[in-house]
């Protein structure tokens, strides 16, 4: 449960709260940019990041993102993370 998953930042959703939309394996998820917010947030749009429990923990390059995703898919961790994201959404709605 300590593994991050690569996701690409697609848009800033809340500048003040440092929140952004990320695409993770085809799934859209709002994430916090707090760990990488040491630069203007707009510069992060289009960047690949390692996302862990809803936080972009590090900026990585596209090749690293592809390789990491492949390793996570092999381990079954990618699907586990996507399932957890879906569960999180249900928890918000109280439908779990």
């Amino acid at each position: 449960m300590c593994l991050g998953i690569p996701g690409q930042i697609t848009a800033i959703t809340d500048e003040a709260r440092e929140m952004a939309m990320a695409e993770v394996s085809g799934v859209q998820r709002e994430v916090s940019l707090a760990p990488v917010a040491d630069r203007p947030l707009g510069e992060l749009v289009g960047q690949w990041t390692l996302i862990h429990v809803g936080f972009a923990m590090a900026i990585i390059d596209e090749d690293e993102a592809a390789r990491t995703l492949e390793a996570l898919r092999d381990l079954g961790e990618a699907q586990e993370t996507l399932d957890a994201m879906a569960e999180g959404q249900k928890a918000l709605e109280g439908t779990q």
Partner: protein
Amino acid sequence: MKHVTEFRDPALAKGLLAEIARLCEQIGARREKPVQIMEICGGHTHAIFRFGLDKLVHQGIEFIHGPGCPVCVLPMSRVDECIEIAERPGVIFTTFGDAMRVPGTRGSLMQAKARGADIRMVYSPLDALEIARRNLEREIVFFGLGFETTTPSTAFAIQAAAREGVKNFSVFCNHITVPEPIRALLSDPHMSLNGFIGPGHVSMVIGTHPYDFIAQEFRKPIVVAGFEPIDLLQSVAMVLRQVAEGRAEVENQYARVVPEHGNPASLAAIADVYARRPSFEWRGLGEIDASGLRIRPAYAAFDAEEKFGVGYGATVARHVPEPEGCACGAVMTGRIKPTACPQYGLGCTPETPLGALMVSSEGACAAYWQYGGARGAAA
């Protein structure tokens, strides 16, 4: 199990396996007298089994599976306390899904949910905070669990709650740290490890310097590693090269993700929100000095221990002995293999886990079970 021909770069993998074999011969490592390398991180344990690296490498290498799986080291008493909080009237208890099946003395969180407690699996502490914003009449508690990769996210959520003045959100903080249990293992006079593979994503947060003591005080090599099979093979070769040359250093195989000094924003959030506990209980390892984090008094309003009077925040933290016959402690410290546990595959399976190492895919016993087969089949 994968074969080396299925690796992304089979030629590189074969070259590394040959290099590992050559170094094993040079050191004189063999099955009867192996070089013991502990992979600290549960994610690495899972990867080693998934890719069959333990079988691909020279037989002079023995992987010892470290304590780096947060749910595996979670004591039964902490699970009991989670259930105690979750069953209070008005509480919505939120947790990562990984913790749902860990057995406590009154069953697991999953069983408490079935009995009617409002327990919800979240992906992020931010989900828990959002549930608090949407349910102002309820008390939302987030179970803060995990090592330094996860620790900053809980801290950021607490800071956000404080900034926004959210009153109905608190954290049951059970965050733990990687270096301290390694110090405890190295201080054991029976310790026979030759080197370590250091965690990748934990190190992305804390950097490589927190491991300096391993090389400087205990004279053991440690190599921080990525999660691809090639990363792990390369790291094993780097540890062996240090052993062969009589060096003990902290090396970083995963520099493309792990900065030497970690992630400054995450480290600042950790320092702001948490203080170290004098000691913390680890399942199978006992109390370890300074290995757990609590929430600082400045954020007491968000500390579930203070709010509910449980855990280390109560007068005395409870200790519950492990179930009869459970050998998780011996497996965790590398004294025995999972298959040597009397309960392995009998009283303890992934469907009905007795000990925590059988719960998570990152636990050594679950990995043996999944990739090694039933009792007796695993080597």
